[in-house]
């Protein structure tokens, strides 16, 4: 993990909910699900349908066993693992590889 970037402290995460970090102008939504493996998920914060930076503020859960976040604007669901929009396959958000290492959340490229 040489070229990894520190996003935030593990303590900044909120269990079963999301927060947002900004790295080089990019907004990344981080979701912390302590009971899952892995425990953190990262997707773009931009809601391509609602057209605002809000995904980190959605409710997380699962639909048909896929881990998802529901956009707080118009409630479409985005897959936390592959970024797909469940309601409309034309929309997809970027995903990021992240990990918790020594109490820090790292972007592992």
């Amino acid at each position, binding site marked *: 993990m040489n070229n990894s970037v520190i*996003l*935030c402290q593990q303590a*900044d995460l*909120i*269990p*079963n*909910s999301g*927060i*947002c*970090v*900004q*790295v080089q102008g990019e*907004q990344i939504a981080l979701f912390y*699900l302590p*009971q899952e493996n892995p425990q953190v998920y990262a997707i773009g914060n*931009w809601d391509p349908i*609602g*057209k*605002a*930076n*809000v995904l980190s*503020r*959605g*409710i*997380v*859960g*699962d*639909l*048909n*066993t896929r*881990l*998802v976040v*529901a956009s*707080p*604007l118009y*409630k479409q*669901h985005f897959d936390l693992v592959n970024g797909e929009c469940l309601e409309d396959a034309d929309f997809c958000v970027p995903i990021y590889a992240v990990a918790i290492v020594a109490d820090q959340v790292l972007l592992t490229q």
Partner: protein
Amino acid sequence: MINVVVIGNGMVGHHYVEQLAAAEVEAHITVIGGEPRPAYDRVHLSEFFSGRTAKDLALTTREHYAEIGVDAYFGDPVISIDRDEKKVRTESGREFTYEKLVLATGSYPFVPPVKGNDHKPCVVYRTIDDLGNIQAQAKEAKVGVVVGGGLLGLEAANAVQNLGLETHVVEFAPGLMGVQLDAGGSAMLRRKIEAIGVYVHTSKATEVIEESENGAGRLLMKFADGGSLPTDMIVFSAGIRPFDQLARDCGLKVGERGGIDIDYHCRTSDSDIFAIGECALFGGRIYGLVAPGYRMAEAAVSQLGDDPIAFHGADMSTKLKLLGVDVGSIGDAHGKAEGSVAYTFSDERIEVYKRLIVSADGKKLLGAVLVGDCSDYDTLLQYFLNDIDLPANPESLVLPYSVGEAPSLGAAALPASATICSCHNVSKGDIVASLDAGSCSLADVKSETKAASGCGGCAALLKSIVDHEMAARGLEVNTSICEHFAYTRQELFHLIKVGCIKSFDVLLEKHGSGRGCDICKPAAGSILASLWNDYVLKEKHVGLQDTNDTFLANMQKNGTYSVVPRIAGGEVTPDKLIVLGQVAKKYNLYTKITGGQRIDLFGARVQHLPAIWRELVDAGFETGHAYGKALRTVKSCVGSTWCRYGVQDSMAMAIYVENRYKGLRSPHKFKSAVSGCTRECAEAQSKDFGIIATENGWNLFVGGNGGMKPRHADLFATDLDDETLIKYIDRFLMFYVRTADRLQRTSVWMDNLEGGLDYLRAVVIEDSLGIARELEEQMNSIAGSYQCEWKTTIEDPERLKRFTEFVNTDAEDDHVVFVQERQQPRPATEDERLQLLAIEV
């Protein structure tokens, strides 16, 4: 284009106009009404005395007629018909020519030819104008007598009692409602209405009405048997007489005892003239109910098109609520058919009477009488109308459940031709067709077929048919809240309550599967809050809340939030107004007065919310819960303190109510309003619960809604004192919180509540479920544990950490850009944003 003139704009004349306007026929329609106003709902006339207004009763408006191209004239009765010239002439001298003429003149109250029946306090009861008369006479009266113990007489008695008078009913015949009921049913009805304080005098022939001398009342009625009765006013409601003078004068055939003779096509003896409704005589009979009149109107309209239908008479079965008593009568109620046999069940303890008349061979139902309990009416009517074979032991149809097995007639057993809704003539076949055409819920079927949207009497039967048909199609009525819980919201509520569950994790583990989602999480969060009233941002609840609840503010389209402080009852001091202005200026917020009598500040970035709220809380503001499924606002009018018409302090009541229920989490948002008098400036009748001041206290309305599908609230209880009012609201709200579906406003909940308003009254007022105390205690406990979520939040540094756009930098979301419009900020459009950015670069 055919030129049609309709005389009379009562219920049936209006139905004719609507049907014709909607038909394929090219017609120019002229309507001439004798009353000064367009058609209204005469059937519900007596509700005028329990709070409905003339406007509520209206079936149409002048504007609507104009819109659909109908020429309408009111308050100008027709005085003659010239059949040779095909012309009619009105009182004011207007003349109209016609190609086809329709007489829908209805009938007028029969006043027995008793000496003294013209004294001033003697009135009749048929029109809205009569209501005014009755009200005026009742003002100075303490005692009111209704002459006539039939259906209309008892309606009138209801009105007199609602006006607060000591009420007497004087009937010539030996029993009440002799047309519809047998002697046993009539006796039970008498018992029941005497129990609610109405005095009944039967077998009384009034001989003379005198002005009273001894001062015991303004009038003295003297009877043939030597008795007498002092009274202050008399309402004659002893039957009807058809308005057929016009027809007589122009030589149309009329019946011996009145009524304009018509054939199967509703044509009179002149084939260009039709007669429909209560003025028409068909098969030697006048049909004094509205549904047969509607069928006549439809038959008459069809004669002008290519596909004429016939009128073959109509069933006169009725189900009514008279003075609060359920009364039902079907077919041959008196058992006149030869060889018929009767089964009778009577229980004086619970005051229920039921009688079945069946054919000699015991196979068919010929008639029935129900008093005190009409729950079997729908089933019995279906047996009767559709000639369905009775079960081997017909008595089981009327025996109480504990005695015999009551085989209710399953929806499946009804033939497709069975009429389910007689108001709108909807058959079982129509309902099935609507489902075939894509309706997939009760609500769909209702709006598609109009079934159950008239008197509402068929609602329960309709529901059972829809449920049955949907199940038969494999369209299982899935009531699970989402894939994680196989329960309805109501069931979840019980599980959480009974199991004393305090967190979503435990709930999921015990009763659900998977991880939850954006449907069940907020629903559970709301139930947890309704029951235990915990601070919503406690760590274990955080993930359950919608962003609006998480940040205690409403998200706007660009990701910023709005700030809505509570302004209870819409009352705000100048100092507080100044603070709002200062805060808005400081944080560059767009300011607007909301539709709910308070002030909304828009465009706050999430990281500014705590600072904004600190200033607001310091100035004495609290959260307005604009984000929550909770109490929104209680609108008010200034009431008796300022307004010259106000009769109670509506302002103080609005503030009290808003403070009592603020913060209560519920299945959906709910709203209220308090008006200081019947002028209703606070629009309380469009609210989930509305309060309107009366001379004696408060009238409570429930189930109103504005929004997408407005619903007028129902009058729930009248003249309540402060304490009873609050008690009823406590119970009403808690019962709603417990039993409604997720995101179901009180209006929709009420429409789906089996038993409807009466059931709700039974639960809330009579405590029929025995839970009133529990509901009140729960409400007290919630009101007692209220905390302003914003105040708690700004005092908790741990919580405040959430209020940031980015946890790793203080930078701001550069996608949020504002431009100025009308001296205030608003979100930039995408084009504007790119332009602004382009200049910056």
